[in-house]
């Protein structure tokens, strides 16, 4: 009897948690398979589910979707570039600070940590002005470099934590064998911290793919913007096709969710190691 009561309590917690979690996502899915009339009717399941919205989005048959594929490619390109550049910048810095014990490394690490803790929305204002000064405004390089700036501090921190755990005997053995610093870096160090590199690269990639604020500030041309900015544009009209907005949103949300679940093992380990060290 007491066991049954415990199970009942757990179910009573579990059901609201499931509804709370899934409702906005289910709502988005529901709109994507409904016609406009059915979407606005407030039913919990459409009488005639349809995939027509996806066809409209893929064929760019709406004013708001004129550059859908172009914007999708922009998002992808920028995310991949940010992931790759962040990996190069952060792996070099972490190796230098942790393994080569470069003078001033501690200071650089503190600068990186400080950057990590500046709320991104606050950094956005001076960043926008600086990008104007550099003549990068309205170019995709502005967004790529801004996202590398935001992603690399955490990346360096995670990679440095991972590097510190590697045994010193490895470096010594490599030096005795006459390896150059670059050989130590490429042949010993990078393979050993590969799991952390996966975590960090995925983190930077997702951060860039998901970013709205910086993309919306730094890019304005319809052919340059990323998908989230295009989604925001739907709000500019009162009679926006919300069923198409939700369809596009769903298509936009699927790749990062899939990547997140595929790399979850790395992500969770990286997050708990880096974000909160108790």
């Amino acid at each position: 009897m007491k066991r049954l009561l415990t199970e009942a309590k757990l179910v009573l917690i579990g059901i609201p948690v499931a509804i709370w979690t899934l409702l906005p996502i289910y709502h988005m899915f529901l709109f994507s398979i409904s016609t406009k009339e059915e979407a606005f009717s407030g039913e919990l399941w459409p009488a005639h589910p349809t995939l027509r919205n996806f066809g409209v989005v893929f064929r760019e048959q709406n004013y708001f979707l004129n550059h859908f594929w172009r914007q999708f490619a922009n998002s992808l390109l920028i995310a991949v570039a940010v992931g790759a550049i962040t990996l190069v910048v952060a792996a070099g810095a972490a190796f230098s600070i942790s393994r080569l014990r470069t003078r001033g490394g501690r200071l650089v690490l503190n600068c990186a940590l400080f950057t990590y803790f500046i709320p991104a929305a606050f950094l956005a204002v001076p960043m926008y002005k600086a990008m104007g000064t550099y003549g990068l405004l309205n170019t995709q390089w502005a967004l790529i470099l801004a996202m590398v700036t935001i992603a690399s501090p955490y990346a360096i921190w995670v990679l440095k934590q991972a590097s510190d755990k590697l045994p010193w005997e490895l470096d010594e053995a490599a030096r005795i064998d006459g390896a150059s610093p670059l050989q130590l870096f490429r042949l010993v160090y990078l393979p050993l911290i590969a799991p952390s590199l996966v975590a960090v690269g995925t983190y930077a990639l997702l951060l860039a793919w998901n970013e709205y604020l910086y993309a919306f500030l730094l890019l304005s041309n319809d052919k340059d913007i990323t998908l989230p900015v295009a989604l925001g544009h739907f709000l500019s009209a009162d009679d926006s096709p919300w069923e198409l907005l939700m369809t596009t949103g769903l298509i936009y949300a699927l790749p990062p969710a899939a990547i997140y679940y595929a790399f979850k093992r790395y992500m969770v380990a990286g997050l708990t190691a880096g974000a909160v060290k108790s």
Partner: protein
Amino acid sequence: MSTVALPGVEAAASAGGPRRRLSPWQAWGLVLLAPYVAVFLVFVLYPVGYGLWLARHPQSYVQLFADPVFAGSVVNTLIFLIVGINLKMAVALFLSGFFVTARPWIRWLSVLFILPWAVPSIPTILSIRFMLNPEWGVVNQVIFRLTGADGPNWLNDRWIALSMAMLVHIWKSLPFWTMILIAGRLAIPGELYEAASVDGASVWQRFRFITWPSLSTLYLTSAILSMIWTLGDFNSVYLLTGGGPADLTHVLATLGIRYLRLDQVDLAMATIVSALPLVLPLVYFMMKRLSR
């Protein structure tokens, strides 16, 4: 056996030192560090310095403090931090206890539970925005069907709209903090709980004397980090309410961007500088904690 060879290695590595010439190891150290240093100087130090220089006029602050939107934003930000974060962390603490319960279906639920964190925030926030649409949104339609009365105009009232923005923020970030606290709970040795149940401890006593003492440091760190991130949460407010109605639901993060869009950069920077007394102690705390 590597320790035998160690003195020779050290001598070789430090040989370049006294002659003030960099050994290849030190030179490569600088080369590999250089890209990040460049990123930091060009995209953090210079912009921040330039921004602070733009915010140097006392006149900007006089103008800012005279703007009623600023005062409202400060109040909203504080409510967001005090109510939003305490609510979020308390629920995360509770749910972390729920999710460490060993049941197959709870494992499956925990996989689903991460979804809000795993998907980008823009489409889901817009989805919630439409759910709260007074005429066409599903929330008011359900209210109408159940009670026959019209539901509230959710996003057209300052306090309801602000509460909804807080709920959006909690919806998005609750999974992350729950995961962190689950990791914290799993690190507590199981023998402690076994010993407690032998002694006949109640659920509350087990929490009070075992779980909480082990988790309190992690909980505090999480709350502080969450405060920093919440201060920078632009999306929850901007995409749900756009700062409206009548600029009444702005927080400092969206207010800075609002001034920037109005081409009042000095006010935008002044807004950020005004937030620094709140931000810097939190950042200092976190840096102390991570540097240990």
